[in-house]
């Protein structure tokens, strides 16, 4: 292929730069550092997350879908997660309602596809909390805010549980399910998703492999003075305890579950 002369010069310059650096680099010390840290069971270095950067949300419009959309969603088999105050969790394991099972995932994948069809691929996300279903849809479908339907779908569940200091049983206090395409920034607030005052959730996910998903999330729940930031990889479908705190004689835990949606379902 005939390339412009300066393009070849550019390649040569880049290769030369890279080779000179490699020739000067000794990796033995770094190898030793890594294996020593691994032997200790982790690194003492500040954490570096494995996610790609968040996409900045584009200009979007919020469609208050109201009763019509809620009814439509209800008809599409969304399994609604409603934490009930009387439900208790008897152990330190993730509570059963933090898991996303195959049946739920199949239903959520069908829901995402159906809503994307209804909104002609302008759907950005679907969120469900405390029995309410909210969607964000691009206004005109031309600003590229929604990701193409080829991007893999993801389902995310965040559950907050609490218990009193003298109790060994956990009670769910807040939960949300989110459906979106990977790399879509999802930002739920009281105004756009009907969350309780002072509650906010930002999510971004990217599948680094079939079973491993990089997740970047930030949750604030003012009512319980919770501020959670998570930036790491997670196993698909397996709840991760992303936060735990004890305050004023009360203990809180936050579980986050993320799973890829099989679009063939």
């Amino acid at each position: 292929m005939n390339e412009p002369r300066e393009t070849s010069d550019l390649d040569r310059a880049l290769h030369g730069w890279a080779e000179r650096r490699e020739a000067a680099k000794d990796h033995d010390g770094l190898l030793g550092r890594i294996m020593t840290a691994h032997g200790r069971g982790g690194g003492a270095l500040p954490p570096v997350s494995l996610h790609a950067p968040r996409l900045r949300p584009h200009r979007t419009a919020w469609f208050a879908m109201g009763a019509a959309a809620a009814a439509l969603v209800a008809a599409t088999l969304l399994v609604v997660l409603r934490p009930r105050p009387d439900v208790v969790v008897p152990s330190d394991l993730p509570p059963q309602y933090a898991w996303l099972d195959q049946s739920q995932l199949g239903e959520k994948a069908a829901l995402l596809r159906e809503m994307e069809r209804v909104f002609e691929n302008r759907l950005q996300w679907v969120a469900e909390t405390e029995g309410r279903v909210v969607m964000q849809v691009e206004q005109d479908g031309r600003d590229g805010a929604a990701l193409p339907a080829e991007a893999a779908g993801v389902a995310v569940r965040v559950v907050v549980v609490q218990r009193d200091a003298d109790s060994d049983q956990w009670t769910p206090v807040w939960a949300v399910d989110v459906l979106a395409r990977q790399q879509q920034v999802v930002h739920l607030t009281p105004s756009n998703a009907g969350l309780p005052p002072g509650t906010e959730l930002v999510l971004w996910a990217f599948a680094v492999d079939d079973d491993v998903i990089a997740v970047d999330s930030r949750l604030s729940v003012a009512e319980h003075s919770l501020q959670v930031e998570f930036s790491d990889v997670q196993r698909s479908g397996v709840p991760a305890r992303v936060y735990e705190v004890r305050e004023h004689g009360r203990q809180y835990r936050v579980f986050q579950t993320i799973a890829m949606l099989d679009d063939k379902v």
Partner: protein
Amino acid sequence: MRNIGETPAPSDEQLLASYRESGRASAAEELVRRHLPRVNALVYRMVLDESVADDITQEVFLRVLRSLSGFRHKARFSTWLCKVALNATYSYLKSEKGSPVRYCREPSEGHSREPSPEDAVLEAELDAEIRAALSELSPKLRAAIVLTSVEQLDVKEAARIEGCTTATMYWRIHQARKKLRHRLKNWFSP
């Protein structure tokens, strides 16, 4: 050339299986040793700082070793590793957002060939200019040029690592080359 009777080196997949099944530290070490130069080079070419590159490389391998149980062989291990390393650099660069990438004027020592004193000065200057030019690219454009021009991956592979379409990758490469050519035009013949 391998001697007759010499045991062939285990593949990445064999090392992964060995590490997953028995937790053998030697398997983990061999995996790290095998991929460390490439990962460290990739990270360095993105962050342009030796010390930061080493820290990120360490963190990448520690996290990868902890996540190996989740790795499936659908993607090559090296591809997955590149993805993870790039994601880590993006994370770092995001945290440094607002300030340009810092690059160090590192002396070019240890060359495989010994340049003349005049050439050595010119090479050091060119290296500094290249680092400066790369630091001015956005992380996505930098990754595109590093993966294709420096790492010499084909465009499809680079797109797979970056999680974008090949068309997007072509566009990024084009943009990156255009900016670099403009920035480094004084170094090239007209």
